[in-house]
Structures are given as C-alpha cells and as structure tokens.
C-alpha cells in the first residue's frame, strides 16, 4: 500500500506529485514569500505603535538595556523567525487542504469515497529532515547564548562588580561585599539595588526562606534564589537608568507584591552613592531650622488594600525622581523628626530594622539607614511619598497581606509578635493588637524616616 511519489498527469494538464498538484506548490511558495515579508516587519510592529504599550512597559523584555537581556532577546527573535515561517507554511497548507478538500454539499457528505492512500514515506521522511534543519537554526544561537549569559565573560571578569541579592518573604536584601563599613560590616540596603553602569555586575543569589526569583527584564532574564544552592547571574546596564524588577517565583501569600528596583549610575555617581551609604544615619538636631519652615501636615486617607502606589509624574522620569530623592526634603519639622525617632524605639521597630548610627539594630527586616533616599517602599510596591509611607506604617496588612511586620515572626520558642500577636494554637490574632500606630504617631514616623537621607 506504500506509494513512492507517483507523478501522474491529470486530464486538465496539471501534474500530481504524490497528492500535491504543482500549482498548489507554487501557490504555497507565494504564501511563503508573503509571510517572510510579514515576519520581517514583526520587530517594527513589536517596537510599539504610538500609545500601544503592550510590549513597551517598564518590565518589557523587548526594550533591553544591557547585553544579557539583548542576547536573550536575539535568541527569542531567532525562535520567532523560525517558528513564524514554519507556522505560515504549515498553517497555509492546512488551510488550503481544509478548503480544497471539504465536502461542499450536505447531500454528498458520504457520496464520494476518496482514494484510500495510507501515506507517503518520502514526504514523511523529508519533512522530518526539514524539521530537524529548522531546529538547528535555533540550536546554534541558543548554545552560544547559554554560555554567554551564564557568567561574566572572561575578559570582563576583572572589572566586574559583585553584589549579593537575598530573597525574603516578601522583599529583597542587597549586600555589597566590596563595601565594608568600619565597625558595621558589609554595606546592606533593601529593595533598591544600585549598581555601576557600563560595568558587568555579578549578583550572587541567595534566599533566607523559600524560593524566590530575581528578574529585571530590561537587564537580564531571571535566575531563581533557592535555599541551599549558590546561584548567580550577571547583568550590565549599558547606560545609567532606572529599572523595574519583580520576584518571578511563587513564594507565598504576598508574592504578587514582592518587587524591587535597580538603579544604574555612572562611575562617579556610583562612588558618591557608595560613600554616602556608608555614612551612618543622618541626625536632625531638635530645634534646628533646616531647608525652610516646617511644611503643613499632609492629607491622609487610607485608600484601602491593593490601592495603587504609583504616579504618572514619577513614571515620566523615574531616574530624575531617584536623583531628587537623594536631596534633603524641604519643610522638615525637627521636632516631629525627634518624636518619630522616639516612637521608632517605643513601637519596637528597632528589633527588626537597623538604622545605623541610631537605635535600630535588627537584621530580619530591611535596613532603614538611608530609607529617605529610596524611591520606593514596601519592596518596590509604593512610591516613597509621605502618604504612602503613612499608609504602609499604619495599615501594613492592607498593603502586603501576611507581612512579618504585621503578623510577626514564628520562632522556635513561640512567636515574636508584630502589629498583632498570633496565637500559635489557633493561628488567629489575639483580640488586642500588639502594636497600634495612631495617625499622629504615623506622621512622626514618616517625618523621621524621610529625614534618613
């Protein structure tokens, strides 16, 4: 029953090659040429169309800003071309076959019994060969990029800058092993990773609890942070810039709001930033007048859970916003700041948060020594405005459900309470909260934390 490509001449003068007529082959060639043109235009199309932002968001994998993400995008384009062309050919033939051979009238559904051919080994084997060939086109750049993206290239190793990124439920801690502070060890920040631009950065990926994944789409694809495993990735920002990142591995209740930012600075700015970060927390002397008269109290209404913490103004020029954040705020109120610093101790914030040079010494929560100079709070979730910080301090569980500041930390010997004290037997919070923050207290804390430039 096997057929070996019988070439037969039909009465209408066309040739039948296997089951394919020659005109149909030419027609499919035409389809192919058209499809090539369409696919060639694809990168243009993907680049963005006026307001169409489907592929140009802050975490776009197309708008690459560094060689690692670029190399990954190049591989993606290869796969897109190969599969796109194959799709157009196969889909074209499928569509053609469907229309050409369908029964046109209901009454002749069973009228015609077509030739009961069982296959054609030459066509079948040929198509297997072609498939393998198409895959080779993908395999070669894939292999090259696997080695390139894995680690800093040998010739750039000497200039690479090294940082440690540590995932925690649900925030990121960043350590700078190259920057040692006398008496205080390694420089540590939280949720905003500042790196030198134009220089490869090797990031050691660690976690202190469950699996997280470090992903800054414009700079590099993700690599997971896995307990008991020393992972790393490398990336390079070609130019100074401001980048969005997010945890990409499901890590528990608030996974969706575990985000971070990366800021790339030129060599001078980076050195200045490091030097400033190494200094202890800024102290505002009581009764001193700085930078103008105290500003009027801000308006605060709790916007409720999941409310947005971003603004169009910020998004327009995030890097400029970051630079502005390094300056001391106008209208500081020294008295309020001093009060906030006391409340920070009274509310036991100090047992988890560190404020180097001030009272805080905790290490289980983000280091707040220079919190006032960060553009975001709550792990890259909210812009670091007075209202947002107030909201985060006063209503943490509505911003990030299940966060440790609110529910506390389970320990071997019971539970260290957060805003609420959880009864280990029932898992329910006790009726009286452990920490309450009134509106006035929150305002003082906001003033204090924002003074920590």
């Amino acid at each position, binding site marked *: 029953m096997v057929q070996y490509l019988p070439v037969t001449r039909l009465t209408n003068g066309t040739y039948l090659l296997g089951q394919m007529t020659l005109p149909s082959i030419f027609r499919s060639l035409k389809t192919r040429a058209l499809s090539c043109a369409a696919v060639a235009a694809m990168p243009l199309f993907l680049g963005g169309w006026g307001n169409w*932002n*489907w592929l*140009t*968001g*802050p975490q776009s*994998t197309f708008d690459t800003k560094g060689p690692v*993400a670029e190399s*990954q*995008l190049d*591989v993606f384009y290869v*796969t897109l071309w190969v*599969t796109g062309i194959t799709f157009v050919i196969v*889909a074209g*033939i499928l569509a053609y*076959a*469907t229309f050409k*051979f369908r*029964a046109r009238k209901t009454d002749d*559904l*069973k009228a*015609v*019994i*077509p030739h009961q*051919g*069982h*296959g054609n080994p030459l*066509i*079948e084997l040929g198509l297997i060969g072609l*498939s*393998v060939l198409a*895959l080779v086109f993908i395999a070669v750049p*894939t292999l090259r990029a*696997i080695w390139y*993206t*894995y680690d800093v290239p040998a010739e750039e190793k000497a200039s690479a800058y090294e940082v440690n990124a540590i995932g925690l439920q649900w925030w990121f801690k960043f350590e700078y092993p190259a920057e040692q502070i006398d008496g205080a060890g390694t420089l540590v920040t939280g949720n905003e990773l500042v790196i030198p631009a134009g220089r490869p950065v090797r990031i050691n990926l660690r976690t202190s*609890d*469950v*699996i997280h994944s470090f992903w800054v*789409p414009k700079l*590099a694809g993700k*690599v*997971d942070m896995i*307990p008991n495993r020393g992972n*790393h990735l490398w990336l390079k920002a070609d130019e100074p810039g401001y980048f969005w990142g*997010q945890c*990409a591995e*499901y*890590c528990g*209740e*608030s*996974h*969706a709001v575990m985000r971070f930012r990366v800021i790339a600075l030129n060599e001078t700015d980076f050195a200045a930033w490091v030097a400033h970060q190494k200094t202890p927390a800024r102290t505002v002397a009581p009764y001193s007048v700085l930078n103008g008269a105290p500003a009027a109290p801000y308006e605060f209404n709790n916007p409720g*859970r*999941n*409310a*947005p913490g971003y603004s169009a103004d910020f998004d327009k020029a995030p890097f400029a916003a970051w630079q502005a954040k390094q300056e001391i705020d106008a209208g500081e109120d020294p008295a309020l700041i001093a009060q906030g610093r006391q409340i920070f101790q009274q509310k036991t914030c100090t047992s988890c948060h560190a404020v180097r040079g001030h009272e805080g010494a905790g290490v289980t929560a983000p280091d707040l020594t220079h919190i006032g100079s960060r553009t975001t709070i709550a792990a890259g979730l909210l812009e670091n405005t007075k209202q947002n910080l107030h909201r985060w301090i006063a209503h943490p569980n509505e911003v990030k459900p*299940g966060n440790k500041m609110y529910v506390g930390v389970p320990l071997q010997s019971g539970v260290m309470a957060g805003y609420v004290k959880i009864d*280990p037997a*029932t*898992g329910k919070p006790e009726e009286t909260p452990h920490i309450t923050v009134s509106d006035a207290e929150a305002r003082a804390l906001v003033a204090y934390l924002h003074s920590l430039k």
Partner: protein
Amino acid sequence: MSAHAKTDFVGHDTHAAAPVEKRSWLLTRPTAKTGLVSWLTTVDHKKIGLLYGISALFFFLVGGFEALLIRIQLAVPNNTFISHQLYNELFTMHATTMIFLAVMPLSAAFFNYMMPLQIGARDVAFPRLNGFAFWVFLAGAIVLNIGWFVKSGAPDAGWFGYAPLTSTAYSNQFAGDMSTDLWVMGLQILGVSSVVGSLNFIVTIINMRAPGMTMMRLPVFTWMTLVTAFLIILSFPAITIALVELMMDRSFGTSFFDVSGGGLPILWQHLFWIFGHPEVYILILPAMGIVSEILPTFARKPLFGYPIIVFSGATIGFLGFGVWSHHMFTTGMGTVATAAFSLLTMAIAVPTGVKMFNWIGTLWGGHLQMRTPMMFALGFMWMFMMGGFSGVMHSAAPADAQQQDSYFVVAHFHYVLIGGSIFALLAGIHYWFPLIFGRKVSEFWGKLSFWVIFIGFNVTFFPMHFLGLNGMPRRTAVYDGNMGWNDANLIATVGALVLGVGIAIYFGVMIYTYFKGEKTTHDEWDARTLEWTVPSTPPPEHNFDVIPTVHARDAFWYEKTHKAEIEKEKAEHAKAEQDHGGIHMPSQSWFPIVAATGLLIGAIFFVNHIMIGAIAGGAIMFLGVYLWAVEGPGGYHIHLDDKNHDKH
C-alpha cells in the same frame, strides 16, 4: 438492535465440576443491572467510563469556575475582588483540578469506554480493578477539594508545590495548616488510581485484542492509550516518592527538603518534573489519539503514515522522560545541563511536528465532512500547532530565562492544554456521543458551541503572550496599572467570559441531547474502527455478539467493504462461542468501592494527624482487598437468543 441476553447462570462458571457451593451473604456477588447498586458495584468498562466522564466534566466545571474568579480579579489593575490568599488557593486548585481531576480522568473515561471496544474485547483484563481505580480517583478528588469546606482552606502552594514553601515552617507558620497535607494525600491517592488503571489498560491491550488485531492494526487512540499508560506507570513513582518524602517532612520531622536539617529543596523540583513532564504528554497523547480517529473518519480516508504516527507517539513517550529540566532552566543548573535539556527539548518537537504533518496528509485528498467533531479536531490542530511553536520558543533556554514563570508560559500551556487536550476531548465527546447514548447532537448547536469556545479561547489566551513578554509574572494576585498590562488583561477576562459562555452552550447542548436529541442508527459517521460494530447504541453489556476477527487496520471499514465474507465468518464464530459456553462476563463486586472508601477514611484521618483513624482506614482498605481476593473471580455466561442475533 438491543441484545436479547438472558442471564441464566450467576455466581460461578458453567464448566466448574464442583457443585454450587452456598456462599455467605458477604461473598455473594451483587447482580443489580439498574439503579444505584448497579453503579456502585459495576465492573462494566462502559459504566466505569461514564462514571469517569461525568466526574471529570463536573470537576472541569469546578476548575473553570475557579479560572473565571481568577480572571475577574485580574480584569483591572489593583483589583480588590478577592484576597491574595484566596487567589493563591484558586490558582493552585485550578491547575490541580484541571490536570488531575478533569483532563486525566476524561482521558481515562475514553480509555475505559473506547479502548476495549476498539480492540474487540468484552471488558478490560481486570474488571474489578477498573472499578477500584475509579473509586480511588473519587476519593482523591474529595481529599483535594475538602479544603474549601474546612478551616484550613484549600491548598495554596501552587500545583507543583515547590519545597520549601510546602514545609510546615512556611505553610503552617502559626498554626496547624492541613491544606498542604490535603494536597499531598489527594495527589498520592490519585496516583494509586492512575497506576492501577494504567496497568489494567496495558494488560488489556497486550492480551485481549480480538483475533487478527495485531499491534500495527491497533487504532491510534488505543496506541496512545498504551503509550500513556506506560508513561503513567513509569512517571508516577517519581511523584509518589517526592510526596512520601514531603509527607515525612511534614508529619514526622524528616529533612528531605528542610534546609535547616541539611535537606535540598531542588531535589523536589527534579523529582516533581521527572513526573511532571511525562505528565504533560499524559495529558496530550490521548488527545492526539482522539484526533487521529476523528480525522480519518471525516476525511473518509485512512490515517496518513500510520506507522510514523504510532512511532512518533512512542518517541514522544520516551523523549518525554529526558526533558524534565526544561521546567528548571532558571534554577541555575549550569551551562552543560541547560544546553543538554535545551537540545533534547528541541528534539521532542520533531515527533510532535511529524504528527501534525501526517494529520494534514490525512486531510489531503480526502472528502472532508465538516461535522462538529471535525470542527473541534481542526480547532485542535490549529491551537496545538500554536502551542507547539511557543513551546519551541521555550526550548531555547536563554529566551526562556525571560519567559519562564511569566504569562508567556501561561499562554503556551493553555494553548496546548485547552487548545490541545480539551479541544480534542470535546471533539471526542461529540464524536462518540451517538455510540454511547444513541442520540445525535444538533449540528447547529454543536458548531455554535465550537465557534464561541474557539473565539473565547483565543481572545483569552493570545493576549497573554504579550503580557508575558511585557514582563508580567504568573501567579500574581494583583498588578499595578502603570505596567502596560491593562488592555491585555481586560481583553483576556472578556475572552474568558466568552469561553465560559461557549462551555455553557456545549454542556447545555449535551444535556439536552441526552434527553431529547434525535435518535441515531449506529455508525452515524460511517466510521472506520471496531467500536462502531457494536450491535446497538448504546452498546450492550457484552459489547459484541460475536468477537470480531480483524483483517485490516481500519477493521470496520474493511467489514463494510467485505460484507459477505464477514457475515459468514461471524456466523461460524458465534456457533463456536455458543458451543464453548456462551459469552463470558465478569461479576459485579462491592469490594472495589469498600477498599477505596478505606483509603478515603484513612487519608482524612491522617491529614488531621489522628493516627488511630488513619490505621482504621487502612484496615478497611485491607479488609476490602482481602474479601475481594476471597470472593474469587466470579463470572457468568450469557446466551444470545438465536433468532435475534443475526439482526445487526
């Protein structure tokens, strides 16, 4: 024609020399042919297939409802429709339900119902084991879903439950949280069901084929049943081990995955995906089998390149065990392992592509009848092709570093699982409905449901490719409105609602047709395989009046073109069978459901750490198995009325 069967001998074999022994009530086999007892004690592969099918469709609706809640939450940015916790439970249960409680059992329903008919057998090799597999499946499904109704809530660690998120340290931070235990026990029990069922299918296909039904004449759906069954018995041990280790960690303080005790969380991922990747093919190969049945029937010509389709299915089965780490390209495996798994994953695209070429070859030169099952099968080809191409994109590990755990992956696997598996299963329901229920689904409503589902599906999932490439991670309960994700998410939600309407139409039409649909003669589609040679629709309990003799690959097509020869042969065989004692049928039994109930009771007590209850459940199971053994194989003969048996 209904088969006029008389059951003249119940409880033991006609040829047994020993006198009829008096048995205690406990070991007396139930004989109810209708009513609740007949279903609870059934060993008929068709009834068990229906039980599987109805349960699977129920859970398909449950999983779909969960998906709609997820899509409503994601319709707009910063939405507060549901909490993060509930969202996490919903996506965990949506995936677990769709994979283990909808697609797998729906495939199992077709395995059960169609495979014995396709090979010309009267039942599966171990009928009681078949019943046991179903009841155990139901027990597992109950354990998995019970969390919705108790304090701890439903499982919330994701369907692949990555350690150490599943450990007591992170899932029970403050109080005993048994949701993860429910997940562990539920999957463990479902694994028992799958392995038991698969062994049964393998033995049946190898041993119970009708005379002349050589392996290379097997219908492709039966071939895919065989390959899938092997995949199940070879891959489920991996997840069984992983789940036992996790259960040990959670209940008895071992440290397989606990870092503080020196455990390795990455071990879970390897064990899980060594199961999990073959599982992907467990979900798609039956679908490919169904499509390989439907296309030849409606193209009215044999499958193009049958041997290559069969071998490519088997090749996919083999290679499927060598690609698991492509789910782990971002776990820092190093360059060599990443490269190896990248290339192997590309390699698996070849046998998959070959199937697509051969299906197109089947259409080529045919006379295509555009009936509803054909529409769904063609829909499958288009959607599976697109899912296949995005799969090739993932195989390039560097590109996957951006796509992994993003909505691009979500788009990809819904294209292969809905566009692939579900479309084919929906096609299969339409295709075999006339055979199973003797009624025909209206072409208008069938096609309407197809188009609404097809459009709704694409509107839902195509935009997700863009979401993923634009950096939206999966499993996120909320997103900000400044990320460029708003339009695509809203469109996807609208699409999901359209898809929901399509599914509602589909189910409505099926239910209507079951009660009021137009009656059909058997062989509604002028089909080609043996299941359509049953003497009546619905098929009689004994399937075939005479065990068919197979002369060609498309056995029924051959019969239709060689009527005289087949008539003569059947008459001879009927006489031989009658002389041999009539048609041998298996006896019903209570013990499969008793043993499965023991498993259910034991699991629920174990999850609550009430070990006495767990042991009691185990005892019930062992008692069920013991009495099952003691009651013996049973079986009885039926004799067809001579004057009726030639009328089909």
